[in-house]
């Protein structure tokens, strides 16, 4: 409908009715970019007559003849006083009040709300803060920015996923928060897949990183269940609401961002360089360990070779001949060289990483239509040679106003990315495993070449590793790290489309409808290639291709009702219904036993091909209603109810929520010079849930492999067959349920200069779905059931103090501190549930303990806690099963920062800390067994006779390899016999208790300096501003843990944590950026 015509008719109708008594004016309220402001208050000055604007910013108000001044106010904007005069329609433009810019927040459904009217707990992360970190991956840029929010990285692999947790873990089944972008849920999965195990393989990506960070307008973290209740089962882990940029009416705006980041490994495991490969003090060129001869005591010069018979010829023609192992009379054997290669080996594998990031966005439009367009390209070379990540994104969005009652907005974005990841973890074809176990005296350089046997028969393309220095067998045992980076590939290619469209129907001034729908579709194509002679059981070659096809669609219909019940009470009602469909297909092809030693990445190369197809589909529906009552500006009450049903649940569920906000400072009639500016008490209760994974109702038949230890045999290899699944199905599966209580206080002091916010919460997740390991005699291995219960209690505190504010200079200190204590209270009679594979140390749920405690083999202890020692004074293995060895959850975390602005300069310094978290340093512990870790290279001169683990006595005064330690029965010598039995190595038969340590850390998370040029000269050149920035990430790390950033996790983005096992390292970076605005 033509707007002018409409208003003309309106005016005519109204004027003819009320012409001689009163006057009704209509108008719109918008911000200075033309965006309508919904819910703005319009009051006739000096009266209680008022109205609030609808969702298009429209209002209508009746004036008395002698009263024609309107007061228009909206939180976050400066008040405006308008003299109506003879006008019948008024356009009000409000100017943003920069002092309280944050004060408009976005509700979980994506609508703007007044901050002070919101009673749930949330944190706003300014986009400047988030993007200032210049992280190539979006998730990591959120680290340290909000209380209760924990971001744990997995490794520095480009594009690697990270864990996001809000208020700790709410469920064993993963509780990464729901990410809502412009009201549409975004898939943020982190799928391991069949080709890459969680304990060893590659770091998988997180799909959240597909977003172009430049598109983001705001990020808000809703922590409590009360806020998430409208989302029901998706919001168990909290909700992160992201709104993206839209075009604004006005001139074309162009913004160009470019940055270059240089990354370096931030921690290196210390290794010894004193002793060679071998055992028992004798050199051996094929030994697994470095318990060989003392390198400095060798003759020096070239090794003594046997040049008749077999040899290895590297690609550059270098020949390697057999070297004799040491003997009792000559511990060095044929080894004469005193060269060590730790540093050169390292430098052949690691490099300075480089990331180039370019982002461009354009926006503009007029009153009827706006557009937004962005594109970005990230090109990253990781710190490990051949690891890389390339990402391109394109986004196009527009808004269109059809007429007075119908507006629409649509957006589509496309992302494609490509990455090669490096094999890591518990994986003999991984990089760190082969590099760190490598003896100091073995040069990894010539990793590939031709092996000639004693008869001169050549085998080309053989893999030369430290345990196969002649490449004389198909099995390298452990990969040469150069083979891992140059010969193996682990590519992933992702294509993703995200589209959304919504219509807003402005039915009456008090009733609006919003119809929204979204589509999120991606294809992740992963290829893993292990050529012939690779480790990890790929001696005969292995090609794997795994393709995920994921399509999620959602549609939502929302009705919004707005009433002014009395002068003092305003009411809002929201009713909605939503449907959601998630469909995923997984195609997996594994091709083993190559027909020839080629590099063709296609199953055609192999004789043994298996294909697996997995389909997964889940749907859910929701109906919800929420009412909001506001009494003056003092009391705010939200009541909500959500009904949900999901295809995978046997029962539907109803979630209630209630929030009460009490702005008691508004009762105090504060004067302008009172230190207190604002005070609010928040109380909230809410429930959320988690739907079971689909298709869990039946116990089907499966094909299977049978392995008891490194000896798997499979039904498929014997012509096929079946077994009743060892994971028992359960037709009674239903939602997990979480309820949460919270209470909080918000204060603003000194004219809003100091902001304080504190929250206490308690939540309990019941009926948690758990595949409990059954005792084998039950006849099944696991049963999935609604079994477990978990509690979390925590405190959160945030502050921001603008302690200096002058025209040119502004200084803020800000930060947060939070705690979360979890306790597993019920596990259905099972002692423990493991989240991680492997038998050495596990991250597990144990009744009465925090979630994720480290469980594993312990030393025998006496009743008083001291070690129960053997006759030689050494600890003994407690054979009675696993014990709790540590807790990877921190006692508290926090961050503190300083923000300074001086003229065009801005500085941000952010420290983050985590205290009281334990880690199982399994890399260190295993390397002790291998004799490569630094401590095992020590030599001591005992001051008294000491015995070693096997009971041999070492006399005082004689230098011996090892360390002296007193376990409680006097000093003993820790040497090879100790480190290779109970004091190092892997499996459940070593004392893993000694691998667990306090991993508290503090880091300089971010240091950034920016300078903005917006002088007249720039403006004359037609530009709005130019900003230069220099950012350092992770530059300094303080921790007792050596060798690795304690923030890494062997098990990636899963629930299990606090484990390091040859996990790829983390990085520190320096980023230079430039931003040009037109």
């Amino acid at each position, binding site marked *: 409908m033509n707007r002018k015509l409409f208003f003309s008719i309106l005016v005519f109708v109204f004027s003819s009715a009320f012409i001689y008594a009163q006057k009704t004016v209509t108008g719109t309220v918008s911000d200075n970019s033309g965006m309508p402001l919904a819910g703005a208050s319009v009051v006739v000055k000096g009266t209680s007559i008022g109205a609030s604007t609808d969702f298009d910013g429209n209002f209508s108000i009746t004036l008395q003849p002698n009263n024609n001044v309107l007061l228009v106010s909206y939180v976050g904007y400066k008040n405006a006083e308008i003299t109506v005069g003879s006008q019948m329609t008024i356009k009000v433009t409000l100017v943003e009040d920069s002092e309280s810019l944050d004060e408009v927040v976005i509700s979980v459904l994506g609508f703007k709300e007044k901050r002070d009217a919101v009673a749930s707990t949330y944190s706003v992360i300014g986009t400047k803060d988030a993007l200032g970190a210049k992280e190539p991956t979006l998730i990591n840029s959120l680290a340290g920015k909000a209380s209760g929010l924990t971001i744990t990285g997995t490794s520095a692999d480009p594009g690697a996923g990270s864990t996001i947790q809000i208020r700790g873990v709410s469920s064993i089944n993963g509780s990464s928060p729901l990410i809502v972008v412009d009201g549409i849920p975004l898939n943020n999965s982190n799928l391991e897949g069949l080709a890459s195990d969680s304990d060893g393989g590659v770091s998988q990506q997180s799909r959240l990183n597909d977003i172009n960070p430049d598109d983001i307008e705001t990020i808000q973290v809703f922590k409590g269940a009360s806020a998430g209740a409208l989302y029901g089962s998706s919001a168990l882990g909290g909700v992160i609401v992201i709104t993206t940029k839209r075009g604004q009416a006005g001139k074309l705006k162009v913004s160009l961002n470019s940055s270059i980041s240089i990354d370096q490994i931030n921690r290196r495991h210390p290794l010894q360089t004193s002793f060679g490969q071998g055992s028992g003090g004798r050199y051996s060129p094929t030994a*697994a360990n470095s318990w060989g001869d003392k390198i400095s005591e060798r003759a020096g010069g070239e090794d003594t070779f046997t040049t008749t018979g077999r040899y290895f010829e590297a690609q550059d023609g270098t020949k390697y001949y057999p070297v004799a192992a040491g003997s009792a009379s000559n511990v060095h054997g044929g080894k004469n060289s005193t060269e060590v290669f730790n540093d050169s080996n390292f430098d052949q594998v690691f490099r300075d990483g480089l990331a180039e990031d370019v982002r461009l966005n354009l926006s503009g439009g007029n009153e009827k239509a706006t557009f937004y367009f962005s594109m970005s390209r990230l090109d990253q070379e990781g710190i490990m040679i051949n690891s890389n990540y390339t990402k391109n994104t394109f986004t196009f969005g527009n808004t269109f106003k059809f007429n007075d009652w119908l507006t629409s907005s649509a957006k589509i974005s496309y992302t494609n990315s490509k990455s090669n990841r490096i094999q890591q973890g518990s994986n003999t074809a991984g990089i760190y495993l082969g590099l760190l176990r490598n003896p100091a005296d073995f040069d990894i350089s010539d990793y590939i070449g031709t092996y000639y046997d004693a008869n001169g028969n050549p085998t080309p393309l053989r893999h030369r590793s430290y*345990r196969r220095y002649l490449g004389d067998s198909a*099995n390298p045992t452990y990969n040469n790290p150069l083979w891992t980076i140059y010969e193996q590939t682990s590519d992933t290619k992702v294509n993703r489309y995200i589209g959304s469209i919504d219509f807003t*129907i402005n*039915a009456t001034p008090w009733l609006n*409808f919003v119809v929204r729908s979204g589509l999120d579709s991606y294809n992740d194509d992963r290829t893993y290639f292990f050529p012939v002679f690779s*480790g990890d*059981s790929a001696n005969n070659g292995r090609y794997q291709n795994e393709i995920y096809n994921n399509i999620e669609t959602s549609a939502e219909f929302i*009705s919004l009702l707005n009433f002014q019940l009395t002068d003092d009470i305003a009411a809002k009602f929201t009713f909605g*219904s939503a449907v959601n469909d998630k469909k995923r297909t997984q195609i997996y092809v594994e091709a*083993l036993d190559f027909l020839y030693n080629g590099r063709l990445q296609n199953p055609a190369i192999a004789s*043994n091909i298996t294909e697996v197809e*997995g389909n997964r589909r889940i*749907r859910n*529906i929701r109906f919800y209603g929420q009412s909001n009552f506001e009494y003056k500006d003092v009391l705010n009450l939200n009541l909500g109810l959500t009904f949900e049903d999901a*295809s995978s649940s046997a029962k539907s569920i109803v979630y209630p929520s209630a929030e009460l906000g009490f702005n008691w400072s508004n009762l105090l009639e504060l004067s302008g010079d009172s230190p207190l500016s604002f005070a609010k008490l928040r109380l909230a209760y809410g429930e959320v849930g988690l739907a079971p994974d*689909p*298709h869990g*109702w*039946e116990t*089907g*038949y499966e094909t*299977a*492999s*049978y392995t*008891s*230890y*490194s*000896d798997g*045999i*499979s*039904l*498929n*290899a*014997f*012509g*096929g*067959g*079946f*077994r*009743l699944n*060892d994971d028992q199905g359960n037709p009674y599966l239903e939602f997990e349920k979480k309820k949460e209580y919270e209470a909080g206080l918000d204060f603003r002091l000194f004219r809003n200069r100091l902001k304080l916010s504190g929250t206490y919460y308690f939540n309990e997740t019941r009926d948690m779905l758990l595949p409990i390991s059954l*005792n*084998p*005699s*039950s*006849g*099944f*291995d696991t049963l999935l059931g609604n079994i477990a219960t978990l509690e979390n209690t925590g405190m959160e505190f945030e502050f921001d103090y603008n302690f200096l504010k002058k025209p040119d200079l502004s200084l803020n200190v800000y930060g947060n501190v939070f705690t979360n204590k979890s306790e597993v209270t019920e596990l259905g*009679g099972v*002692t423990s549930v493991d989240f991680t594979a492997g*038998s050495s140390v596990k991250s597990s749920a144990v009744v009465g303990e925090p979630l994720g405690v480290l469980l594993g083999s312990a030393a025998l202890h006496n009743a008083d806690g001291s070690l129960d020692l053997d006759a030689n004074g050494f600890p003994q293995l407690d*054979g009675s*099963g696993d014990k709790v060895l540590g807790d990877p959850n921190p006692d508290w975390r926090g961050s503190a920062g300083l923000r300074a602005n001086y003229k065009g300069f801005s500085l941000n310094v952010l420290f983050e800390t985590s205290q009281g978290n334990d880690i199982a340093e399994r890399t260190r512990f295993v390397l002790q*067994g291998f004799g490569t870790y630094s401590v095992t290279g020590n030599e001591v001169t005992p001051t008294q006779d000491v015995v070693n683990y096997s009971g041999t006595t070492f006399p005082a005064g004689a230098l011996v390899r090892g360390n002296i330690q007193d376990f409680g029965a006097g000093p003993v010598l820790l040497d090879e016999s100790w480190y290779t*039995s109970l004091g190092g*190595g*892997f*499996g459940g*038969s070593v004392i893993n208790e000694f691998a667990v340590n306090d991993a508290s850390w503090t880091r300089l998370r971010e240091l950034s300096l920016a300078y903005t040029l917006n002088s007249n000269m720039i403006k004359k050149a037609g530009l709005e501003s130019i900003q230069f920035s220099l950012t350092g990430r992770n530059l300094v790390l303080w921790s007792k843990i050596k060798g690795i950033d304690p923030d890494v996790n062997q098990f990636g983005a899963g629930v299990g944590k606090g484990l390091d096992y040859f996990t790829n390292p983390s990085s520190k970076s320096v980023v230079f950026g430039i931003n040009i605005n037109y």
Partner: protein
Amino acid sequence: MITMKKYIRKFIYILVLTSFISCEQYLDINEDPNVLTDVPSELLLKGMILADTQIQSGHLMRISQLWSGQLKGKASLYDRIYNYNVSPEEGNDIWAFMYHGIMTQNDIIQEDSADNLVKGIANVIEAHGIGSMASMFGDVPYSEVGTAEDAAFDGQLAVYQAAQTLLNDAIAQLTLVPSARRFSDDILLNGNPAAWIQVANTLKARYFLAVRQYPEAYASAQAGISTAANSLRYAAAYSAYGTTNENSNLYNLIFTGSRAGDLTFNGCFTDGLLNTGTPTTRNNSKTNESRRHDYLTLDEAGINANRLSWKSAPMPFVTYEENLLILAETGFRTLGFNEGLTRLNALRARLRSGSAFLGNPTLSLQYDDYVASDFDAGSIENATSIAADRALLREIIEEKYVSTFGTLVTFDDLRRIRATDNDISIPLTPNSGTKFPERMLIAQDEINGNSNAPSPIPDIFTKTPVNE
């Protein structure tokens, strides 16, 4: 505006109504599209066989060999276990294979299948598995498996008795099958009912022997495996399925895998026993073990087609040789010296044929018949001059120790003979400390989930009831 409102109202009513009605239908998509929920129960037999293969020849059997002088631990886990540092986790897989891999599947076969051949074979497999469990762990759950939430631990003797009953059932089922029938999904004996009946009888003899019921053992062994072709061996039909990693000999898998260097035959007691020129050698003027020594040499280096570590080398479960030696021991114990000697010579004749094992064919093999006087004091089989009777029994025990290499029987016999005839037991010394392991540790998963599990669990040095 008014008419539009009406439309909107109508639209909402329709939307709400249809959504409620179609919800049920819309959400009815939870049937698993990826799995079969109904398969012929006969197809479960092969999985049971592979589960049994791991019980008989997998991790715990290798551990039993480390503790029985048949292998040595060199590095990592096997080195620690060799020195008796072992944790209950080592048994997790084996317990799962027994109860889920065998018993749960067999319950379905016994209930659903009409095929007595498959049912009979499945029962023999179950008896084979549970008897091994009793021998390794002593008291284990059996009678209440699959019925009670926390199954009780049955006494070791009761489990052996239940295995006997099950074997009788199996024999009855197999007897009903026409003797010409075969079943190709049986990868061990191609579904030959007569062979399975013989295997069942040898197993009966094995279990009678374990509880020292010698006459019953002797009687059962007489109906036991009568020809080498009927021996139960893993993947006897290996070649029929091609040669991939995942149907290879388990020794081959471990010696070519990532744990390749962790254990070895070199330097173990059996190595010294079969080798020539060692102080413990069993070679004598009538015996040359060179070829068998080569055959049993298990190490990451030197895997070849003549050795037990070859990818297609069949691994023994229940063999003709074992049956012959049960006859020898129980014949000796029930009928006397001559019966023992005759039966022992029958075994030596079998070894002499050169088909009992491979080994490098250029190496010698010699197993001449023994005569009574060979066991006289000071003679070739009695250098230490003990009673001739004891000397013969000692030789039968030693021969069985070698002939059952690669099965759990060796560990059974060592513990049994130590308990009753320690004077003639294999002269091993503990790898560490002064005591020999007498059992495996109950699996961690069972301890975690079954309130009936003993607490604390018996350590590895605690004898099982039959050897107390």
